[in-house]
């Protein structure tokens, strides 16, 4: 499992703070999940060698002073993958005579602070040690709950009836912890001139291909030229059903191509699917 450079995976406890914040920034911006594992063995200080043998090359072990639990930072890792580490640690029970308490904390919530996590980790690893067995463990899910997120939705169509129906359909979509900020535009130029789309929010753009002043494709080109273009999910509504036109639209950055007339309930489901994917990753 481990390479000869396994000692490189062990870092001083003083570095934990910086690496934790770095990981947390990714969680906040890109919704990347990571796991922090607290390991405590009051009876043996050699546990660090065992841990180094069992962690993956991508995991980092932080060497905390004796008496405090050691901490493993597992980047881009969820609780299920951390279970594999626990299984491997259980496999060492035959080679050791002492108990090892483990606490697994999966972090999805970008608002969690280092102090809160350390506090929960310490408490839960102590709780684990009160359980029977040689490798008792606890999974604490305090930080699995996602923080509230705001998604901006722009509806761009000339016809007020269409924008009203789409707005009502989007408003009907309910996703826990997700706030939708909806705005309607009746032409492409007005949308481009507004600073509405230039925020850091994830942005759903529902645009008709034919619009006054600036058409849907021009709006699309403007969005795709921005440095953070991937935060825009573009739905393009159109009457054009030909294969060539669809290929052209997809190749130029459309995420979903909706041909008119479309079923409103189906459209609502598509919006829900996209929002779920944005939120849960």
């Amino acid at each position: 499992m481990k390479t000869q450079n396994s000692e490189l995976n062990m870092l001083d406890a003083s570095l934990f703070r910086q690496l934790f914040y770095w990981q947390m920034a990714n969680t906040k911006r890109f919704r990347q999940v990571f796991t922090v594992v607290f390991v405590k063995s009051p009876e043996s200080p050699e546990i660090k060698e065992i841990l180094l043998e069992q962690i993956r090359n991508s995991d980092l072990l932080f060497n905390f002073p004796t008496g405090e639990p050691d901490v493993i930072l597992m980047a881009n890792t969820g609780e299920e993958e951390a279970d594999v580490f626990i299984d491997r640690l259980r496999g060492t029970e035959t080679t050791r005579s002492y108990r090892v308490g483990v606490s697994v904390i999966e972090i999805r919530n970008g608002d969690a602070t280092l102090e809160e996590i350390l506090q929960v980790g310490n408490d839960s690893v102590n709780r684990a040690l009160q359980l029977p067995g040689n490798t008792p463990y606890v999974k604490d899910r305090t930080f699995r709950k996602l923080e509230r997120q705001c998604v901006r939705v722009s509806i761009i169509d000339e016809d007020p009836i269409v924008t009203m129906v789409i707005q009502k359909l989007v408003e009907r979509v309910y996703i826990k912890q997700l706030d939708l900020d909806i705005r309607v535009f009746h032409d492409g130029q007005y949308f481009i001139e507004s600073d509405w789309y230039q925020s850091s929010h994830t942005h759903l753009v529902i645009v008709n291909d034919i619009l006054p002043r600036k058409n849907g494709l021009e709006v699309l080109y403007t969005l795709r030229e921005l440095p953070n273009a991937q935060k825009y999910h573009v739905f393009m509504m159109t009457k054009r059903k030909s294969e060539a036109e669809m290929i052209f639209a997809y190749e130029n950055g459309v995420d979903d191509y909706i041909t008119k007339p479309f079923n409103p309930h189906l459209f609502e489901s598509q919006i829900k699917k996209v929002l779920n994917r944005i939120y849960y990753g």
Partner: protein
Amino acid sequence: MDKLLVSLLLVIMVLLVLLFSMFFLLVFYRMEEVKSKKKIKEYIEDRKGDWYEYLLGEGMRIEDLKPNGSLELKAIDELFFRLSYHFTSDEINERINAFAALYMSDYYNKDLSSRSSGVRINTLNKISLYNLTFMLEPVSKILRKKKVYPKAEYLLLYEIIIKFSRTDFVAHFIHPKVTLGEFDYKKLLLELDETQISLLAEDFTVLPDMLKLTLIEIVGVRHYLDWLPLLHECLDSPAQELRIRALKSIAELEVADALKLYEGFSYSDVWEERLMTAKIFRSAPTEEALPVLKHLIKDSTYPVRAQAAKSMKSLKNGQQALYSVITTSSDEFAVDVAEEMFGKE
């Protein structure tokens, strides 16, 4: 002289009065039109939320949307059109139909009996677009009238009959009120489902010739295998075009059934029949297809030779057969077409 001048002035005066009255009349009509458009826009703006609730939500009763006056009817009609242009669902169709049946029956009937052909055509298009099934009877009534309408209107009327009635269209198809061309029939037949097509087939012998031809072609396009016996019957028809179309549809069906029946057409005097036979044999087993295709590759007509070479190439071990034509055939045209087929690779 003075008298003449006075009369001339009078005429000019009368003309001027007439011109001004016409001008004011036009201005008045235009103002009325602008006013009614504004009112329609206001109605849509005010009530669009209620209509959303009625058509897609649960919070609005049909009675609460009862129209007051002709302007509101026009506004609702426009709203239906704009909604149907962008959205479609069984739920929306049903609710539009229910509302229109209750409050707009007279409105559409009036437009349907308008003297203007444009208004009637627009109304027919809307009946079809909104799926106003309750309008089937008034539409059928128009078809029973002796009055002759433009062909475009008849096509729309037939389209509506096909859409709203599973069976009534057959009688109209057997005796259309106006002569329909192949393109018109194709447009109409593409609206039919398989059951309706089968219904039409029951009266195949009494159908107009052009309809027969189109129907036979649709069978091939839609791959209706159950129709093969009818296609075989058509092969015995004295009508040359019907035989050609039947062979074409058999080729589209890609069946290797009754090969002996088709084989005879490889000696037909009509080159189109030989061409279609060459096409049919691309789906036959190699041993049965080769003798026929080897004969057809020497045909006097280029399209037949080219199709025979193409069919030969698509057979199992067809490439070898084609190569043997190049090396052994004494017919230079057959060799040419076989070489051409290799060149296309």
